[in-house]
């Protein structure tokens, strides 16, 4: 499959098999095949990868904010092997479910320390 990374992949929404939103394609990672030909190895998502791409003071602030919520620094991006991608259109569709992937540490922290403590957090209002 021929794909233009900067045009069709970067900054697109990552969506799991059931339509849950997983994150954005914040960066990509290339690997070098046995034959020496580079290939698209994985999609990176998370504030660590995003902060580097944004760059400058704004990017650093982004990473610092995210690092307040994690214990093991630097905050590592989530790596999604490109083989898990089924389809690329207005979003990048994955063949796995969101809960099979590691949850974002910031989401995890806020869920545990803030949102879950409010009554009604487990029910969708619709």
């Amino acid at each position, binding site marked *: 499959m021929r794909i233009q990374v900067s045009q*069709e992949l*970067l*900054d*697109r*929404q*990552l969506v799991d098999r059931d339509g*849950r*939103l*997983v*994150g*954005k394609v*914040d960066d990509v990672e290339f690997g070098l095949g046995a034959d020496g030909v580079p290939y698209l190895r994985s999609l990176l*998502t998370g*504030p660590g990868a*995003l902060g580097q*791409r*944004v*760059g*400058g003071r*704004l*990017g650093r602030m*982004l990473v610092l904010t995210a690092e307040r919520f994690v214990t093991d620094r630097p905050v590592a991006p989530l790596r999604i092997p490109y083989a898990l991608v089924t389809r690329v*259109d*207005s*979003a990048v569709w994955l063949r796995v479910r*969101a809960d099979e992937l590691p949850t*974002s540490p*910031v*989401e995890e922290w*806020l*869920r545990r320390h*803030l*949102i*879950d403590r*409010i009554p*009604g*957090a*487990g*029910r*969708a*209002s*619709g």
Partner: protein
Amino acid sequence: MRKLLAATLGILSAVGGFVDIGDLVAAGQAGARFGMAHAWVLLLGVVAICAYAEMAGRIAAVTGRAVFDLVRERLGARMALINLVASYLVTVITLAAELGGVALALRLASGVPYLLWVPVAGIAVWVVLWRMRFPVMERVFGLAGLALVVFAVALFWLPTDWAALGRSAVTPDDSGQGWGAYWFVAVALFASTVSPYEVFFFSSGGVEERWSADDLADARFSVLVGFPIGGFLALSLIATAAVVLRPAGLSVDSLDQVAHPVVLAFGAAGLAVAALAFFAVTFGAALETGLSAAYAAAQYFGWQWGKRVSPREAARFHTVLLVSVLLGVLLLLTTVDPVTLTEYMLIISAVALPLTYLPILVVANDRTYLGDRVNGRALNLLGAVLLLVILAASIVAVPLAIGTRMGQ
């Protein structure tokens, strides 16, 4: 009736965007100072928001991507982040102003001091955002906002000189206030009519309602009925101020004065309806701005968002929502005048406008997104001309604000 219900998303988006607290006062001021001389600006703004909301709604229905998704994709990570920061600031300060408006409307109805109502308003708005179903929220506040029609009714009840009113609408005049001030008010009014959070809210609302390509007709109907109704309500606010306040030489700096024409026409009953209408539109606008701030952030970062999933599955989205409402309440408790603050925000908002509208126009022409549902030639021409107007407003906003000392 079913048709009218289909339009409530458009009505609520419009009411929150340009019949909110800032406009209750700004439209009143425009009418009291310049008569109907800004009617054309409102008309142009309504055409612009209709054109762009239609595109954003169509993209949301066909692809499930809301406006800030497009902003991120087309402007890239860095420019979109700058837009996010600017939009978030503008939206949260507007949210504060709306919460202030809710408190003012409650004071108008009860006589209990305004600052006591501020935390009550904040909590009430947050509870609705936390628990109420999206379609219910949209219908209750969209339809209740229509109570503002009492201003249009008052216009018929009062001895209005329609010919003079019509003349002042077609022959713009600076009314001896200086053309700088005239254009400053024009830019502020235009910016409030096309506030970016209207398209954030409208397109995200479409995703919340699970629009698909089959709902395109409903989406278009919602745009073409909802936004013009909002425009009509805003126009009737300007007109009543022009008819009642302008001849008396009164200026508008509080909500009581905005309600004055209705009280003149209908007495205490008029005041009650006006207070209800103010409450409904400011509450609706608070919901819209609160959600828009959280939608924009969630869509920029790709977080799970929306009221369809439980809050614990969208913890970052609900945190931003909670923090935004909290910031709004805290801002008001500093006793800053929220309406003055909104006037400054409208200028910042005007500068940032192209950053939201350009990506919508570009994606509305992208066949990889929309297939054969891309813009037609006529809509592209209209969109391009309107984008030039938006660009012009964005360029002159700051020089005008400085040159006229905020329209003095």
